[in-house]
């Protein structure tokens, strides 16, 4: 059962376009992590957001954590073919008996055409 809903599931765009991927949940997470995964490889961590309302920028990527720490977005400016891949959001809980187990969204497959 996926507790994190990602949208859209598929995104096919031209080089230079902008895009936004959304990650929504009814649950509160201690932190939310965004990963990028290429075929045949494991997920690679892009960023972790912790504070409600937090915005982090990584070159052309902007990540935002919702005020209530239930949702997040990833915005890519001027997409390039090298951005092609599966983007995953994952929530972690670290309070009480939790230990950082990740709950993943179903992923967004991004294809950027030259």
């Amino acid at each position: 059962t996926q507790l994190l809903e990602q949208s859209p599931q598929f995104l096919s765009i031209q080089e230079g376009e902008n895009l936004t991927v959304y990650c929504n949940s009814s649950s509160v997470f201690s932190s939310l992590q965004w990963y990028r995964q290429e075929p045949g490889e494991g997920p690679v961590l892009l960023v972790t957001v912790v504070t409600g309302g937090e915005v982090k920028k990584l070159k052309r990527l902007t990540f935002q954590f919702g005020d209530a720490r239930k949702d997040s977005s990833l915005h890519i400016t001027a997409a390039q073919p090298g951005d092609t891949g599966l983007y995953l959001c994952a929530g972690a809980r670290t309070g009480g008996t939790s230990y950082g187990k990740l709950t993943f969204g179903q992923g967004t497959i991004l294809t950027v055409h030259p």
Partner: protein
Amino acid sequence: GAGVSQSPRYKVAKRGQDVALRCDPISGHVSLFWYQQALGQGPEFLTYFQNEAQLDKSGLPSDRFFAERPEGSVSTLKIQRTQQEDSAVYLCASSLGFRWQLTLMNTEAFFGQGTRLTVV
């Protein structure tokens, strides 16, 4: 090596065969996780170890799945009597975990490349 290493990278098993998947976590990482990933989907949690102790196995889909980490480093995921529905990529991840106070930094997970299991 510096990262999480998994072997084999690819495994083809005949239905009914037993398989063993190996994970070498980053040295010194206390926490180790196994996840299962279907094609084009997000990973789903299988089990968690803190050192050699298996503290959560709630995600294991059946009693045919068994995991161990006897010395608190290398872990093995074993699947007995494989079925076609077991076909997936099995990912291992490790994090610093509870070595110190539980903080954001020590819960960040590093993933291996995965083992793609195909049951025919």
